[in-house]
């Protein structure tokens, strides 16, 4: 009897430890997702305009899943110590539901990374930047966001200023190629926001215009967030899987 008592205690100890880890990871997941949601870095309006804000849906789900994991882990600890069949059954079922939601969030965040190619952003920029339609609010958002982005990150276009030369665009429709080979925001600007050397910028003399593209500046932070939400969620779920299997085994061994 002593040996199986030990086994019981070891299993209980493991389950309590597992639940403690789940609780802490739940808090961490909530914190991470709150950070992602509340820190929408400059390019968010562009993502919204491409109707690709999966990362935000995934993060919102992650916040609630994290809190649920924390609450359920406490329930689980109580249930294991008291060896109560009802408590543990409730725990297992609720955990499975949470598992399914976190699975959805993790997959959504992972999918987001796939769909953000530079071509989608390039097409959106060419079609909507400086599109002179005063009624369309989201186009003005796109223009304002791009101008901010290009000024702050000292970049031009998605791949470079040649984007504006390789393709026709809404911008090209209203601005002649000779005067504006690329938008003024691509020029190196002084404190007042005017180009330091307009002719140098139009010629493309290095030092007077921004020669690199903005894609790296845009996609970097977003992809890091998506990576974090997706893979941390995956890790939590793998751990939860083990704890749940252990709990089910424990449950089936409890005297009714």
């Amino acid at each position, binding site marked *: 009897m002593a040996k199986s008592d030990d086994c019981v205690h070891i299993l209980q100890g493991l389950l309590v430890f597992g639940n403690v880890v789940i609780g802490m990871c739940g808090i961490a997941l909530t914190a991470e997702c709150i950070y992602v949601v509340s820190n929408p870095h400059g390019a968010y309006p562009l993502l919204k305009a491409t109707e690709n804000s999966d990362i935000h849906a995934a993060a919102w789900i992650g916040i609630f899943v994290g809190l649920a994991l924390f609450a359920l882990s406490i329930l689980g600890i109580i249930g294991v110590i008291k060896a109560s069949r009802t408590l543990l059954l409730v725990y297992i079922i609720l955990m499975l539901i949470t598992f399914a939601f976190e699975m959805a969030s993790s997959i959504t965040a992972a999918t987001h990374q796939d769909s953000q190619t530079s071509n989608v952003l390039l*097409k959106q920029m060419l079609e909507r930047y400086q599109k002179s339609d005063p009624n369309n609010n989201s186009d003005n958002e796109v223009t304002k966001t791009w101008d901010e982005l290009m000024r702050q990150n000292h970049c031009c276009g998605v791949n470079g200023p040649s984007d504006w030369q390789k393709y026709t665009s809404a911008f090209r429709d209203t601005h002649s190629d000779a005067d504006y080979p690329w938008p003024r925001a691509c020029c190196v600007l002084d404190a007042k926001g005017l180009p330091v050397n307009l002719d140098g910028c139009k010629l493309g003399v290095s030092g007077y215009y921004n020669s690199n593209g903005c894609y790296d500046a845009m996609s970097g932070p977003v992809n890091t967030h998506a990576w974090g939400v997706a893979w941390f969620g995956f890790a939590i779920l793998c751990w939860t899987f083990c704890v749940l299997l252990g709990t089910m085994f424990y449950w089936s061994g409890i005297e009714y």
Partner: protein
Amino acid sequence: PALTREQLEGVTTASTFVLDQPRCTFKDYGNAVIWLVVALDKDIFNNNSAGPGTPETAFQSFPESVSAYMTLNATLDSYPCPKPAGDITVLRVGSETSCAKDASRPTCNGPLPGPGPYWVKFLALEGSVPVAETAWSKPITLRTAKSPSSIPTAGSGHSAGMIAITAILSILLAILLAALVAMLVFCGSDSCGSSTFSKPESVTVRRYNTHHVYDQPAARL
């Protein structure tokens, strides 16, 4: 003349191109005015036939009625020889947009109307007499812009990471659901509980003192 060798982003755009200035090319012609001739067909242009600033060489009629136009006039003072090292000495053909439609400015350096190819040469005139010229350049073709709808945005396919996450998590969820079903079916009623996992409270063996006398010293008789 040739396209500039400087590293400039805008060497050719859709309607402009950049040439090196003709430094140290026209010596001994201090009195001449140096013109740039831009032509779509180099064989038609005749140095003696038409002068600059006339309707036969007006930019505004190019290319419909005129096959070549003359622009960017300068004297030799504008092109000092030798060129100071480190300076960028270029001519941007097509930079004047304000006079492109103004017929009163036939020597306008207006934006080029199409992708070309264009031939250019420099021509030095004293009065209206051509005194020197350079050879025709190689044909210069400008950039053509494509429509943004030609950008391929088809789904790039799913990355390995996403497929791995989806597959593994689906399998885990399936295993958990199966285990749950098995657990409920086999152990839903009282059939699984074994005494090894008994609850803490129910195993307190109460020490029951029987009225049993221990250690009674042997009765001394």
